[in-house]
């Protein structure tokens, strides 16, 4: 079994595989990387770099997109 760690995604604690990249995290959540913007510990990670950045225990990840608004 893969060892997991806990990260905080959009305010919720979630288990992910140790050493998972942000791109793998998005895949595990069934999210299209082109449809979300990723903030990792308060730093925006651009799409081409998502596969290079690995998550660590306790990391705060925000996944945002556009919704209806004025």
């Amino acid at each position: 079994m893969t060892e997991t760690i806990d990260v905080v995604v959009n305010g919720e604690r979630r288990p992910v595989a140790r050493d998972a990249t942000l791109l793998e995290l998005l895949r595990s959540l069934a999210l299209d990387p082109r449809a979300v913007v990723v903030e990792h510990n308060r730093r925006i990670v651009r799409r081409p770099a998502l596969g290079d950045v690995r998550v660590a225990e306790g990391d705060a990840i925000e996944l945002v997109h556009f919704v209806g608004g004025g």
Partner: protein
Amino acid sequence: MTTAVELAQDTPLTIGGRTFQSRLMVGTGKYRDNDTMGRAIEASGADIVTVAVRRVNLDRTKEEGILYHLEPKKYFLLANTAGCFTAEDAVRYARLAREAGFNEFVKLEVIGDQETLLPDVQGLLEAARTLVREGFKVLAYTNEDLVIALRLEDAGCAAVMPLASPIGSGLGLLNPFSVRTIKRRLQVPVIVDAGVGTASDACVTMEQGVDGILMNTALAAARDPVAMAHAMRLAVEAGRAAFLAGRMPRREVALPSSPAEGMLD
């Protein structure tokens, strides 16, 4: 047709180096369903459509994203920083919005009061300066204070957006004098944002000479949003045309329209 001729003589609306056909901008919030939203936006004739930045809902379908219901190529997406109460938060939301990759424009809101949603002008100025430095084209939602509007222009904002009345109130243009003054004194476009309730409000607002109007609730909360969007389109065009035509002077006494001479004994 006279209207077409007059409108053709109007200069196009240019904000931050980009030119737009319509002077009406619309939001995408609070519609009862996405189909109604799409048809209302179409009926409004708007080029600029605002959107908000929010967390993806991890437990629901991805269809909640607005871009699944709005053709991004057809409209100019203007992200807002609605819901932000500090300059720091507004800057954070603006950066996230830009990263979505559509444009560098942002409708900057820094709210100072929960009940009235009136802007925190100190935070607004601070955020505007930061974002302008980072290359954003900032359209700043503000109150009808001339001095703040001037400071926002000095800060490098691409447009200043005074309110007609509080967000979502539908109270119409409460302070035409202040909005007119802001328009007279600023070089950058002045777009009235928030408070318009119905077509007459939009018409009166455009008659002050402002460059455009942004509205959301007036359409979304109308009984028939598509029909109201059509009405608003006409009202914005009518108000603009009337402003360009130049209204007659107001008089406190009557002036007959028919000749005083030639009356029978």
